[in-house]
């Protein structure tokens, strides 16, 4: 395959950036769910 030195970084960037966003979203969701559970659980008691 020709131009591999350009193709591989292009694919790496295209995979890495959405993966970083997905990781960040997943962390935010998990943290918010846990926090909300504590706060709303406390409110209902």
């Amino acid at each position, binding site marked *: 395959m020709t131009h591999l030195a350009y*193709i591989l970084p292009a694919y790496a960037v295209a995979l890495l950036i*959405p993966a970083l966003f997905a990781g960040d979203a997943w962390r935010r969701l998990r943290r*918010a769910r846990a926090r909300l559970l504590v706060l709303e659980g406390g409110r209902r008691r």
Partner: protein
Amino acid sequence: MLGVVDVFSPTAPPRGARGLHRFANPGRFLRLAGRVLPWASGIGLLLAAIGLAWGLFVAPADWQQGDAVRIMYVHVPAAWLASAGYMALASASAVALVWRHPLADLAAVEIAPVGAGFTAICLITGSLWGKPMWGAFWVWDARLTSVLVLFFLYLGHIALTRAFDSPERGYRAGAILALVGVVNLPIIKFSVDWWNTLHQPASITLTGAPTMYLGMLWPLLFTALGASFIFVALVLARLSAAVMERRIRALLAARAEGT
């Protein structure tokens, strides 16, 4: 002006926006997003994986570009989503400004970083294609420059929405910037027709037959559709988190007022 706690109080929606306001209820939105998110992520990942493998290993090399044409399978979907994402950002901003939809301002705030990310992919992969094809990573071509302006508009929106002590003022300033920036979208689209550019004109249009070999077109459509689902999934996940974070702030504010 919507306060943090106001978002969760039942206020009558303006006339003409009742359909939209059905999803203003955070609980209803979170339930809907929770159902759509696994499907959007799964379909997006599957289509993108098929399209990327097809483009990388099965689709033929171009007779002029050689294998560098394979960069197209990541560059073109990112370019389409950079523009489509900005249209979504501007639409959410318009809904927030006109109808004061309580989720629209949050949607705009969460779309902007994802749109900036896809615009960055478009610019970086375009540079990586440009070096072997044009002999330069960057030229001040009308298409490249207008997409760079789009990237700065996204960054400007991200900065502006976070620049005020009152989030609502930030949302409003960001919404105005987003609407003004829409003027850049036709410039991006028609830059290759209006000016004499190095960047090639569109190979796929809504009105005419594609000028691309079908063996290259199919993997491109798979990656484009897959990337679109992934974009939607990322925005939905971020927006769900933002809705919950807003509720957390409201609960903490209510608790602070009660003590």
